[in-house]
């Protein structure tokens, strides 16, 4: 297995309508030992989930806590297996035998960025670990890719020798993104990547993800309970309620013309909703970097 060294390749989407990652009729239920915690949150199973992530597109998945969003992320990352249904990647059924190669092309960005980093290992070593392990590269041979990855997320080389507790939450999330990018993946599964960050840093990370999607042709699944973040970043949105997708479609369809009472109630819960949903939407979705001015004002 070889990995191109140097600047990341820019993908020209073969066909943006073609799904790169697809869930078909997925049923999932946590084992009894772990079910009780999920039941407290209102949902312990996924029912007949069908969704797809298209090449070069940003897809949003929204829903309240306990609706099964993170479970879908785990399924898409191959961290847990469904009881029924199939996962397709690049048109092929995802099997245990294909999992290792799949994990090089689909990378996660988790909530609570500090927790996602090994507290006892310097940042630089953590970023290059996937290269050392999966490609049997030597540490010295990874330096070019390491420099490219941290530069892509706007970090300086000084951070590489630090431990996770010595950096801020925003820097930690950039490190997580750099760690995902170093394998030059095709899909990023972002599970609540900005919910643990303050507003300013949220906007920076959203801009970064938007830029990376455009410059690298990345496909994104952006999971969040924050409708404003999803509205800014994603062109397609699915709404999850107690393990079932109750609504999906283009961003404008879902946010401006919601079909279900559940989605309407989620929209009503958005701060500043009295200003109208349109205020939460950037005028030109997913096309240009934004600053805080594009997000609804904090109350």
């Amino acid at each position, binding site marked *: 297995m070889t990995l191109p060294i140097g600047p990341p390749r820019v993908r020209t989407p073969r066909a943006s309508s073609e799904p790169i990652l697809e869930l078909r009729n997925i049923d999932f239920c946590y084992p009894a030992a772990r079910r009780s915690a999920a039941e407290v949150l209102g949902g312990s199973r996924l029912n007949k989930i069908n969704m797809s992530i298209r090449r070069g597109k940003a897809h949003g998945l929204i829903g309240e806590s306990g609706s099964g969003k993170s479970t879908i992320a785990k399924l898409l*990352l*191959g*961290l847990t297996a469904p009881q029924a249904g199939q996962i397709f990647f690049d048109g092929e059924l995802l099997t245990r035998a294909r999992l*290792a190669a799949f*994990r*090089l092309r689909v*990378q*996660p960005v*988790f*909530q*609570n960025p500090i*927790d*996602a*980093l*090994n*507290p*006892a*290992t310097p940042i630089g070593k953590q970023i290059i*670990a*996937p290269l050392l*392990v*999966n490609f049997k590269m030597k540490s010295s041979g990874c330096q070019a890719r390491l420099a490219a990855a941290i530069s892509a997320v706007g970090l300086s080389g000084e951070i590489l020798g630090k*431990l996770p*507790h*010595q950096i801020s939450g925003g820097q930690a999330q950039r490190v*997580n993104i750099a*760690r*995902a990018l170093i*394998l030059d993946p095709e899909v990023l599964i972002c599970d609540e990547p900005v919910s643990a960050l303050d507003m300013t840093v949220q906007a920076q990370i959203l801009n970064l993800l938007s830029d990376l999607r455009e410059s690298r042709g990345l496909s994104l699944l952006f999971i969040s309970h924050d409708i404003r973040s999803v509205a800014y970043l994603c062109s397609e949105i699915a709404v999850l309620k107690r393990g079932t997708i109750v609504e999906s479609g283009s961003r404008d369809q879902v946010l401006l013309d919601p079909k279900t009472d559940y989605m309407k109630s989620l929209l009503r819960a958005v701060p500043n909703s009295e200003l109208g949903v349109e205020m939460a939407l950037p005028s030109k979705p997913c096309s240009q970097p934004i600053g805080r001015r594009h997000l609804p004002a904090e109350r």
Partner: protein
Amino acid sequence: MRRKAQKVFASKIGRALVTLVLMVTSVFILMRCAGDPVTVLLGPDATADMRAAYSGELGLDRPILVQYLAYLHNVVRGSLGVSYVYRQDALGVVLSHLPLTLMLTCSALTFAAVTGIAGGIAAAVFPSSFIGRACTIASLVGLCVPSFFLAIVLMLMFSIQLNWLPTGGADSWRSLGLPAVTMGAASSAVLARYTRVAVRESLDSRYVLAAFARGIPFSRILIHHVLPNAAVPILTILGLLIGGAVTGSTVVETVFSWPGIGNLFVTSVGNRDIPVVQAIVLLAGTAMIMTNLAVDLGYTWVDPRSNSSET
């Protein structure tokens, strides 16, 4: 960075010295609280003249502060008095029993560390498997069964029934088996339970999930991510077990007639050989403090966070 490490090292050494002084002082106070040594030694029927003469000989007629300073001076010089029974330097008597106790505790702790840590890791990594459940149940049994009972059961099995190992003494290496296993069993159970919790906690963390998602093999995740982060609580417990091993061997040494410090301690208490008892208490306390110091310094090696508070 090196300067900071030196500062941390010096601070830990300083704390250990303060603890040593406090321990030595506590031994002095407790020995005085335990009763008048003259009455203990001469008995209640001793005459006033005999008591006064003996007090003068032991220096007990001097003011308490002077006695304390003289005691400190002797401790620093390594002189803890003469054993009433052996008529030799008390510390020398204790040190002559030390090698056998060290042999027993080292064997027991090696057994405990190997079985406890391995069992704890197995129970955490395979919680639902037969081996995981067996390790969990074994550690629970190990915690519940008192060492004197386990000693008798082992003796009945391996000495009386099977006739494989001797019931007591320290005549050969074969004599070491039963006391070491008996002493190590409880420590192994404690270590297994702490290891299981620490490893499970580390396995459930987000950074391990992230490592799985990046395609890193489980063996590497266990060695590079899980064990280094679970090492701190395991090291703490191991330190306490090592520190307590010198006195913890008392019951086992007595049951198996192992001629070590624990056996000497029981005999000396019975003989009211205060200098020897005092020497053993000081030695055990010093062992505990030194082990804790080593563990504190070990933290900086296994967990770089403890060496840097910069945020």
